[in-house]
């Protein structure tokens, strides 16, 4: 491990964060000066900037030879932990979240696009802080490293390693010959969709502040809302556009849960690319099927009178959960058991590979299902050779075994997480859904962490464990787990 290179790279990452903090200082100063938060942001900016400068000054020159696998993984793994730290500063300095543990949890929950909050009433917070909190979703959704690759050509040297480590999915597409170009395209598509959703919400009558926050939360599949009642608040306050907002958010959650390279190709005019992609078809059908069965379940339960109402709520919850966003319109914890259980299972599946969502990913689920079928038919055709195919593309055997291992490790860590957090003494439903909600970057679980609850009641150690699980889930385990191997730290 070349610690000086690592230092430089981390310094650069933090430098980018400092830039955003500066912008937020200005926002606080010019738009929300009555809330007196500009000072907190400026302090955070200075702290971050100074840290960045120190790291870069101490660090060594980055060149093609000295950014290897090791440095790549270390930058990604440590980078996320460090960024969540600096991202938490405004919460702490502004005094909105007095405990640093809580601030760090909130910040990590933001960057990993989880959306779990320790706040019982978000509306007490300042607007700039809320905006910063939602903006962390946006940055974390497509990835901080991808952003750095897009704007810092210097990182391009070890870029593919960094890119692979951060982009969700077993083998991320490289849309362009250069990683930097690919990253720029991804951010361009991401930004265009963000602008589109913002305009639609704003045009529908949502104010600029809420539109921005909700758009960041949707596109990053995060789930932080600046309203206490999340998206459902528009219905309870009888906003005439509530249905419109929900529809826009459902559509954009669904888009954010799909592979962004598909969006890129569609934007270039090839609309057929969606249904030509078997993972997309599976994702689409899965969503429809879940909506359909949950609607039936809800309709039977006579919780709602109107079938239209049932479809509206079930589709919002299903899309919100499978894309790992975690926005709520209804408290699905009160729904009948089939609906609650199915939603928990959908949490594990998560979005498509190459999306901003978390979870195991649709592609891995499909692959494992196919493998299982092949393994069974191997009993009757012992000499038959199978390969996992999706249309014309196939999954190479090496990738396959690492995919299987991913799912196994995911489940092992899930069980371990439950075991560790069971020491908090809460019931199984709360603890098990709390772990998956954080690990798969969703947000709300069931029981005491249900859609209308928050994580504030947990002891500090539980918050640190959950923060670690969030970043593990966001980085898809291996980039972070590899840091615990002693081999990576040797010179």
């Amino acid at each position, binding site marked *: 491990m070349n610690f000086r290179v690592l230092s430089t790279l981390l310094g650069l990452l933090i430098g980018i964060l400092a830039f955003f903090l500066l912008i937020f200082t200005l926002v606080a100063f010019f738009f929300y000066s009555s809330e007196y938060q500009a000072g907190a942001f400026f302090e955070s900016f200075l702290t971050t900037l100074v840290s960045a400068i120190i790291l870069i000054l101490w660090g060594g020159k980055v060149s093609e030879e000295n950014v290897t696998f090791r440095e790549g993984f270390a930058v990604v793994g440590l980078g996320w932990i460090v960024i969540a730290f600096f991202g938490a500063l405004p919460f702490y300095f502004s005094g909105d979240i007095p405990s640093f543990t809580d601030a760090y949890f909130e910040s990590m929950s933001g960057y990993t696009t989880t959306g779990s909050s320790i706040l019982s009433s978000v509306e007490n917070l300042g607007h700039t802080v809320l905006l910063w909190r939602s903006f962390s979703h946006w940055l974390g959704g497509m990835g901080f490293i991808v952003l750095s690759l897009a704007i810092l050509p210097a990182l391009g040297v070890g870029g593919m390693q960094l890119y692979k480590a951060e982009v969700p999915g077993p083998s991320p597409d490289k849309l362009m010959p250069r990683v930097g170009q690919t990253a720029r395209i991804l951010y361009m598509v991401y930004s265009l969709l963000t602008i589109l959703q913002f305009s639609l919400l704003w045009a529908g009558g949502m104010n600029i502040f809420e539109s921005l926050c909700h758009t960041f939360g949707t596109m990053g599949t995060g789930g932080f809302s600046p309203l206490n009642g999340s998206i459902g608040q528009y219905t309870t306050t009888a906003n005439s556009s509530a249905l419109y907002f929900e529809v826009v958010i459902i559509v954009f959650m669904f888009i954010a849960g799909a592979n962004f390279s598909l969006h890129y190709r569609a934007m270039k005019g090839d609309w057929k690319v969606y249904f030509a992609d078997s993972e997309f078809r599976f994702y689409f059908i899965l969503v429809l099927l879940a909506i359909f069965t949950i609607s039936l379940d809800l309709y039977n339960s006579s919780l709602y009178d109107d079938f239209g109402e049932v479809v509206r709520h079930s589709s919002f919850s299903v899309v919100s959960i499978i894309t790992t966003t975690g926005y709520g319109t209804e408290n699905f914890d009160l729904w009948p058991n089939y609906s609650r259980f199915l939603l928990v299972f959908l949490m594990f599946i998560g979005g498509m590979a190459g999306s901003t969502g978390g979870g195991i990913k649709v592609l891995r689920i499909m692959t494992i299902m196919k493998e299982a079928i092949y393994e069974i038919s191997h009993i009757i055709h012992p000499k038959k*050779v199978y390969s996992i195919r999706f249309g014309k593309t196939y999954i190479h055997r090496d990738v396959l075994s690492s995919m299987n291992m991913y799912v196994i490790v995911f489940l092992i860590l899930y069980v371990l997480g439950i075991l560790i957090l069971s020491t908090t003494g809460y019931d199984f439903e709360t603890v098990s859904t709390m772990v998956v909600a954080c690990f798969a970057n969703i947000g709300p679980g069931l029981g005491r962490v249900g859609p209308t609850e928050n994580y504030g009641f947990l002891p500090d150690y539980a918050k640190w464990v959950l923060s670690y699980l969030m970043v593990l889930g966001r980085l898809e385990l291996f980039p972070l787990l590899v840091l615990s191997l002693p081999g990576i730290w040797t010179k």
Partner: protein
Amino acid sequence: MKLRNIKSAHKFFKNSEDLKPGKKNQSNRVIVVGAGQVGTHIMGRLAAEGYDVVLIDEDEDMVNKSREVADVGCIVGNGCNPQIYSDIGLNSKDLFLAVTDSDETNLVACHIAQAFGCETKIARVRQPFYKSDNETPLNDEFWKKMGVEILFNQDLLTIQEIEHLMENPGAIDTVFLHGGRDRIVAYKVKPHSLMIGRRLIGLRDVPIFENLLVVAVNTVTDINTKTSISNRLKEHFSTGKKSKKEGLKTHMLIPRGDYKIKEGDLLYLAGVRKDFLGIGHLFDPGLIKEFTRVFILGGSILSHQLSQYILQHYPGKSIYLIEQTKKEAYLASESLDPRINVLLTSSHDIETLIQEGLDKYSIFIGASNEEDDNVLTCLLAKEETQARTITIVHSNVYSHLIQYLEIDATVSPKSLLVEDVLKVLRKNVYDVLSAKEHDAEILEFVVPEKSIMAGQRLRDFRFPENSIVAFIYRGESIIIPRGDSVIHCGDHMVIFSLRSAIEEVQNIFLN
């Protein structure tokens, strides 16, 4: 003994002018690049027919060998070396044939020949992506720009041939004319066949044979039918290749009406597609008309192409590709249609194949690059399961041996290629039967204006011995000739002729 289809040659019949015999290419010089089996074979035939052949190959031994067997000019050198062509003064009138084993060498050689202004350039290729497809931008025009007038894809020819054999159950050999509408198909008379002992005369009064004409018979004389395969093989190996086949002699003849059909005869029937339906089992009572599974011995580009082709053309049939190495097996399962079942097993592991369903309702195709494997596995499959077997042979080493083995049909990609190339060069030749002792050809002629033939009945106008009119095309209609068919001016006649009679036949049409 092989008959060929003529699809690729057919497009060169631009007008009836081309069908006139004796019309040769402008130049007499042919440049052949590649002294492998294909090259030497073509060179030998062309030299025998009066062309001046210049053979180019890098391998000095190969070139020297060719120098000994035929009167040709030989140059040792790389076929992609422009210096050679500049030295021999390659010009627009020369015929250029690039037939080395390497696709890329052939293409580059043609490209160089184009730069010299050479007009007729033929390249032999094997890779499936080297093909002209008029639906896509990679059409004939594109290949012309690449410098290739005619692209002979050896694997595609082979697949076509196998397809024809599959389409005619029981067939040993096929020649397809006019895109498969008219065809000459060879059947072997198996033991207990209803045909044994019948005379040809009166055969056409049987409804099923009404529109079929027996154009030739390849008959086995003095055969000791009691000899088992192993004895024959023993005999073969103990006596050596030169003094082979004592008491086993085949010869081809154009039968007369009083010919009596014997067991082991190979009958060549001319007719239209629909009339061949259900003919096969008359020659082989045990013939299974429908098949359910196809087993292909893999490990070659050809086998991959073949399995894809069969999948497309025979939907609903199970296709098994047998691969013998892990690498090949995964390559196949990753690149081919998932409906093709890839088996990773040894070619001799017939038990596994039987478990997967190899039985007499199956077709087994030996399509690997190892012909020993192809032949042996086919024999094994035949012995164990009575499956229909088709094997691909790459060299001539076994060709005379295979006809005594229990293999239903053999396909030799290289002979297919040689014959196709010759067909194109000789324009009016539909097909070449190229057994060693008795070559026969299928030729097309136009009955000239004011010919003495016009107005006569076939029976009265005596065609040369050892030749027979197989088809008569008059405008849109096809006539399967009988003795009382009348010849008109302008008729196109397809003539099946033994080599000995070819010259005589040509003379008739010249006058």
